[in-house]
C-alpha cells in the first residue's frame, strides 16, 4: 500500500497570519487546519466543499505554492515540506497543476507555443527544436491542432484554453496533477469534453488527480475517493460510491441533498443550511460545523470531534456517528 502512494499529507496546516498596525500577529486565518490525506497512483481523489472551505488553499499547499505552517507533505516518500526552491525543481516536474480560470491562467502576450516551451525551459530540458517537437505532439494529445502553436490565448475559446493549460501541466510528464476546479468555468458542453480528456489521459499515463471541485455530480463521475472539507478541516472521506450511498457527516448529507437529479419524479428531502460559513479567523469551539448543524448537541458545542473510522476506508469527524 505504502509504495503505491504518490502523495501523502500529514497534519497539514496552512494559516495566514493577520497583522495589526504594528506588524504584530493578531490572529490566524486557519485556511487549512490539520488535514491528512493520501493519494494513490492512478487514482482520482475528489476534494469537495463550499467556497472558502480551504480546498484550493490545500491544493496550493500540497504543490508548495504556499508554505504549510505545520505538517508534512510527502511526494513519493520524499518530504517536500522543507525543500528549497532548487531542491524542489526536479520534484516539481512530477506534480503539476491545472487552474480554474482558463483566461488568466495563460499569459496573453505569449502565443501558445511560447507558453508551452516555457514549461520545458524551466525544467532545462532539450534543445529548442526537440522541445518544439514535444510541444507539437502534446498539442495533438490534448486535442488541439499544430497551427494552434502560433495562436495567442485571446484567439482561443475557453475549452481550447483549458486544453492548453492541460498541455502545460502534462509537458513535464507529471505523475500527479492537482486540478483546481478545471471545468467549473466552462460551458456544460465543453465541460464533458474536458472531463473525457482528463479521463483518457489518466488511463494512458497512469496519472493521479487531486480533483478540487464544488460540483458533486462531476466529482461523482470522476473520483475514486472523495474528501469533504468544511472550514479548513477534512470532515469525511470515503470511496465515492460509499460516500454517495452512505454519507455519515451531517455536512456531507447537506451537500448531497443539494445535487440536482435528472428525474423530476424522484423526491428527495432538501436540507437547507442556515447561516453563513463561520470565519476561519475565529472558528467556533467544539465541532466547526455545530453552528449550522441541524443535529448539533451540547457535546458538539464543546468538544472537538476526532476523526474516526466508520468503515473500512470511511473516515468521519462527527460525534454523532
Amino acid at each position, binding site marked *: 500500500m505504502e509504495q503505491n502512494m504518490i502523495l501523502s499529507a500529514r497534519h497539514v496546516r496552512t494559516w495566514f497570519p493577520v497583522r495589526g498596525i504594528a506588524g504584530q500577529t493578531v490572529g490566524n486565518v486557519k485556511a487549512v487546519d490539520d488535514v491528512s490525506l493520501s493519494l494513490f497512483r492512478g487514482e482520482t481523489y475528489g476534494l469537495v466543499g463550499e467556497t472558502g472551505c480551504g480546498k484550493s488553499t490545500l491544493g496550493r499547499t500540497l*504543490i508548495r505554492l504556499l508554505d504549510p505552517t505545520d505538517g508534512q507533505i510527502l511526494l513519493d516518500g520524499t518530504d517536500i515540506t522543507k525543500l528549497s526552491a532548487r531542491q524542489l525543481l526536479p520534484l516539481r516536474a512530477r506534480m503539476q497543476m491545472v487552474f480554474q480560470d482558463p483566461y488568466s491562467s495563460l499569459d496573453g502576450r505569449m502565443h501558445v507555443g511560447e507558453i508551452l516551451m516555457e514549461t520545458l525551459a524551466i*525544467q532545462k530540458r532539450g534543445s529548442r527544436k526537440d522541445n518544439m517537437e514535444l510541444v507539437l505532439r502534446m498539442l495533438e494529445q490534448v486535442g488541439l491542432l499544430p497551427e494552434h502553436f502560433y495562436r495567442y490565448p485571446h484567439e482561443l475559446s475557453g475549452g481550447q484554453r483549458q486544453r492548453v493549460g492541460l498541455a502545460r501541466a502534462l509537458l513535464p510528464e507529471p505523475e500527479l496533477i492537482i486540478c483546481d476546479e478545471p471545468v467549473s468555468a466552462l460551458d456544460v458542453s465543453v465541460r464533458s469534453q474536458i472531463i473525457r480528456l482528463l479521463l483518457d489521459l489518466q488511463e494512458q499515463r497512469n496519472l493521479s488527480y487531486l480533483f478540487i471541485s464544488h460540483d458533486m455530480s462531476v466529482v461523482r463521475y470522476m473520483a475514486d475517493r472523495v474528501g469533504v472539507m468544511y472550514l479548513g478541516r477534512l470532515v469525511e472521506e470515503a470511496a465515492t460510491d460509499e460516500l454517495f450511498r452512505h454519507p455519515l457527516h451531517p455536512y456531507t448529507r447537506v451537500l448531497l441533498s443539494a445535487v440536482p437529479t435528472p428525474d423530476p419524479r424522484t423526491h428527495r428531502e432538501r436540507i437547507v443550511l442556515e447561516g453563513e460559513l463561520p470565519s476561519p479567523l475565529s472558528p467556533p469551539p467544539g465541532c466547526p460545523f455545530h453552528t449550522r448543524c441541524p443535529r448539533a448537541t451540547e457535546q458538539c458545542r464543546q468538544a472537538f470531534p476526532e476523526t474516526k473510522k466508520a468503515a473500512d476506508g470511511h473516515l468521519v469527524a462527527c460525534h454523532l456517528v
Partner: protein
Amino acid sequence: MTDLSSVRRELRREQRSLRVHRFFRNRQAVLGACIVLLMLVVAVFAPLLAPADPLAQTVSNRFAKPGTAGYLLGADKLGRDLLSRIIYGARVSMTVGLSVGLSSMLIGMTVGLYACYYRVLDSILMRICDGLSAIPSTLLAIALMAVLGPSTFNVILALSIVYIPRMARISRSAALVVKEQTYIEALRSQGASATRIIWRHIAPNILSAVVVQASYNFANSIITEAALSFLGVGVPAPQPSWGNILSEGREVITKAWWMVVYPGLATAIAVMGTNIFGDGLRDILDPHTN
C-alpha cells in the same frame, strides 16, 4: 509535420498589420510621432541643417532682425544666428529627453519590478521613492544641479533621479496586478525562477504603462532642462540650449522679441509633440481605452 513556418509567417503578418493599422488610425499618435521624428532629425542632422555656425560671432550684426540676410530668425547680442542656435539647441533637448526617458524607464522599471516581487525590498525602495517625490521636482533638480555643477551630463543625471521614483511607482503598481494573475502562479508551481518570472513574464506585461510614462518623462525633461538652463544651472554657455537662449533673451525682451519667441516656440512644439505621442501610445497600448 505540417508546414508550420508558413502558418507562422501568415499569423505574424496578420498580427503586425493589425497593430500598424491601429497606430495609423490614431491621428493623434501619428501627429505626435511626426513631431518627435522631425525633432530627432533636426537634432541628428544639425550640422547639415544649420545655415551658420551657432557659435560664430559677428558683433556688427548684433540683434539683427529676423529676415535680415543670413539671419532668418534674427541674431542675438553677439550676432550669432538664432536659427542655427535653435537647431543646435534641439540636440541638447533631444539628448536630454531621450537619455532621461530611457534611463528613468530602465532603472525605474527595474526598481518597480523587484519591489513588487520582494517584500522587504519593496518597503525600503518605496520609502526612498516617497522621500524623493516629497520634494517638488524642479526644486530637487535645481538642488542636484547646484551640487553636481552645470553640464549636459549632469542635467541628465539630475533629471533621471527626479523622474525615477514616479516610474518606479507606476511599474510597481502595474507589476503587482500582473503578479496576481494565475499564469504567474502556474509558473511558480512549475518552479520558474524569480528572474525568469520578473523579466520574461511580468516585464513585458507592464511595458505599455512604462513606455507611456517614459514618453511623458521625455516631454517633462525637455521643459525642466530648459528651466534649469534658463536659471543658469543647466547646460552652460556658450553651448546653445533652448533654455539658455531664452535666458539671454529675457534681458533684451523689449529690444529683441525674437530671442524669446522662437526658442519658446521650439520648446512648446517639442513638448506638445512628445505629449501627444505619449497620449496616442497610451490609447494604442492600453486595451481599456479601446
